[in-house]
């Protein structure tokens, strides 16, 4: 086995797993903060219950995001030490700032929030959850600026003496449009994830006619945030796509399986590829439509994979600069498909309360529980597209993934750790989902007591 391949699988596993929890953290924290603030301003108990119930589910999810995040901080040095030496001068900075600015903030104030209900004034207690929200979202910003540098390196020069990349313009690093577009895409994605989470769980209880007032209210708030969030994700994604064409044309072309530079280019709705994943067998095309996707901008002739490959060979030397086209093509379609479905469902959820209760409601609500999966599918496929679309580069145009590995690392060691992470992560995922489902189903009573008593059947624990 190849330590590079194993290390890539390990990075994929740990990162996808980490990002399974992060979007819900990023979005749900705003729900909790808004609910608690309304409670402080109006004194209505309903909103305190809302902060506590959704806050409980937030906490079960949050812990997993934190502990899997430590792996993210360490594995650049563990598996990718050549990368770390080469770009550490630049890449280390946003990581360190993320820790100092964001991790301390969110972890300290979350500790105070969990334990401080009776120790702080109401206003101060609500302020702590706002600081948690600020901390977690700042954390997203800085890690995405770090990733933005890998996608589109800026503000650096290659030091001829040391042969490594060094930072020359911190301002450029933290204003990198690639990183900011990722951030503007990720934040509404988090809101949409949280919204569908709240919609799904609320629907579960509404269908069963339980705690109607509470879950109707939650449902309505979530429908608004869900619609805004999923539309904003799409808009941000659109502008990200336009910028991607400019700075990473290969990734853009791969996501559309666009081989030859032509104007105007056809859009491929679906396509089949051979086993290499880099050759197309068949596709269903709409003529001219690829150029329409970039509207309102007229991007002209869109460079094709074959032309970019030839250009990169001329610029960087011989090699295969084509990412796994089949994977990126389909990830893009899965992401966008899930996103469009989310917009439709959120709009429907917004319209539902206008229709007649309860006959119309309960029929439409049955779908909502399953829709919780949609943002998770979109989030995951989006990241797979972003990270594999950049290949064979680890830092676009500067360093190839195959050159970035720790030179001392044996395949056996990585295989061992890969299996170890996989087993532990699978066990924790099972426990986490078990708890989330249990608390979500148990409803409000569970938020006020720590543990759902296993001796009680679920139906009785709800009251």
């Amino acid at each position: 086995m190849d330590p590079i391949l194993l290390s890539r699988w390990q990075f994929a596993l740990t990162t996808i797993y980490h990002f399974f929890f992060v979007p819900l953290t990023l979005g749900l924290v705003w729900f909790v903060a808004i609910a608690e603030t309304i409670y402080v301003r109006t004194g209505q108990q309903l909103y305190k219950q809302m902060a506590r119930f959704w806050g409980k589910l937030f906490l079960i999810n949050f812990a997993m995001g934190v502990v899997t995040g430590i792996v993210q901080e360490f594995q650049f040095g563990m598996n990718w030490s050549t990368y770390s030496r080469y770009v550490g001068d630049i890449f280390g900075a946003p990581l360190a700032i993320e820790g100092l600015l964001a991790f301390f903030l969110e972890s300290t104030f979350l500790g105070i929030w969990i334990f401080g209900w009776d120790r702080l004034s109401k206003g101060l207690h609500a302020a702590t959850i706002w600081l948690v929200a600020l901390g977690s979202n700042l954390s997203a910003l800085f890690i995405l600026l770090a990733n933005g540098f890998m996608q589109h390196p800026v503000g650096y020069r290659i030091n001829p003496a040391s042969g490594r990349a060094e930072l020359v313009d911190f301002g450029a690093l933290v204003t990198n449009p690639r990183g900011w577009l990722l951030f503007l895409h990720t934040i509404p994605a988090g809101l949409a994830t949280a919204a569908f989470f709240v919609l799904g769980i609320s629907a579960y209880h509404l269908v069963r006619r339980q705690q109607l007032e509470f879950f109707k209210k939650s449902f309505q708030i979530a429908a608004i945030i869900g619609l805004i969030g999923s539309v904003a994700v799409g808009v941000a994604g659109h502008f990200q796509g336009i910028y991607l064409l400019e700075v990473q044309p290969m990734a853009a072309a791969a996501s559309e399986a666009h081989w030859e530079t032509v104007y105007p280019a056809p859009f491929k709705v679906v396509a089949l590829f051979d086993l290499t994943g880099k050759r197309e067998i068949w596709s269903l095309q709409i003529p001219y439509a690829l150029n329409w996707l970039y509207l309102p901008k007229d991007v002209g002739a869109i460079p094709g994979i074959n032309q970019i490959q030839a250009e990169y060979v001329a610029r960087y030397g011989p090699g295969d600069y084509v990412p796994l086209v089949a994977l990126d093509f389909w990830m893009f379609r899965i992401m966008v498909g899930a996103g469009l479905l989310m917009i439709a469902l959120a709009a429907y959820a917004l319209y539902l309360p206008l229709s007649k209760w309860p006959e119309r409601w309960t029929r439409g609500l049955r779908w909502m529980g399953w829709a919780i999966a949609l943002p998770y599918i979109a989030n995951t496929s989006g990241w797979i597209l972003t990270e594999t679309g950049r290949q064979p580069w680890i830092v676009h145009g500067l360093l190839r993934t195959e050159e970035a590995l720790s030179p001392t690392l044996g395949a056996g060691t990585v295989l061992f750790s890969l299996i170890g992470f996989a087993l532990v992560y699978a066990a924790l995922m099972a426990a986490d989902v078990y708890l989330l489902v249990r608390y979500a189903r148990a409803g409000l009573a569970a938020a006020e007591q720590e543990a759902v008593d296993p001796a009680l059947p679920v139906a009785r624990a709800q009251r």
Partner: protein
Amino acid sequence: MSTELLQTLWFVLIALLWIGFFFLEGFDFGVGMLLPFLGKRDEERRAFINTIGPHWDGNEVWLIVAGGATFAAFPDWYATLFSGFYPALFLLLLGLIVRGAAFEFRSKDAHPRWRSLWDWCIFAGSLLPALLLGVAFANLVRGVPIDADKNYTGNLLTLLNFYGLLGGVATVALFLLHGANFLSLKLAGDLHGRTRRLARRLWPVAFALVTILMVATCFLTDLYSRLGLASGVIPLSAVVALLLAGSFLGRGREGWAFAMAGLAIILILVTFFVTLFPRVMISSTNPDYSLTIYNASSSPYTLRVMSLVALILVPIVLAYQFWSYRIFRQRIKADPRSLTY
């Protein structure tokens, strides 16, 4: 500021982050290791967890930031250390992951088997990182095989030498004492007396191991040959601080006992970092291959930017972390109504 000054500043800052981590997470780990043994009933175990409940996550961030700061200021140190100590760090990560999840999960289901499972996860997730960090730090000052390309050429077994293992065991013993001291400060009623007695029983073990570790540091590292007799002052004061901790324990002055054992932790780490300076990883293959703050650091520009960031943020972080300890300064009883975790 000159480049050398910036490099020294970042060495000191990273040392401070590690010291902060060992002091704070030290009692966290201690509480975690004592949990399944000391808590007889479930409410008692929950009371133990609640003493560190609001803080453990924030304490752990000190480690993450130490890692991040090392990456930013000394990329070669980060790259060599993390790739070289791969198996140890993998186990450390598993420990921390399981431990963090266990804190959040354990009280969310009342089934005794469920709770006992996570309590043992907290135990293992506290013991393993404490042991591994001690082994790693001792090996850092002892020196490890590093080649001319700054790559570690040993394996996991290379780290398991006498001095490394001594470092690991002494760290575990000291954290147990630190944890027991912390518990006796934070708990009320019956639990308070029980943890105080336990601290007294743990003290001789910790004292003996730390004394051996400090003596060994003078003989098995190049501390003495580089700095002469004056170098003995810091390890000696670590031993004295721990001696004082024992004396305060005997007289029931638990606040002072906690402070003195904490001071011993700080002084042991100061000993380590003084031995290292200005090196960050000592090569046992050839002293010339050692990584130093000069040949492992980031560019002066990055160091300047990061210094400015740290100068602004560190005081703010210290202020609100201090505030969080003040909010939760009251003692905790094993009363189900007042427990959160």
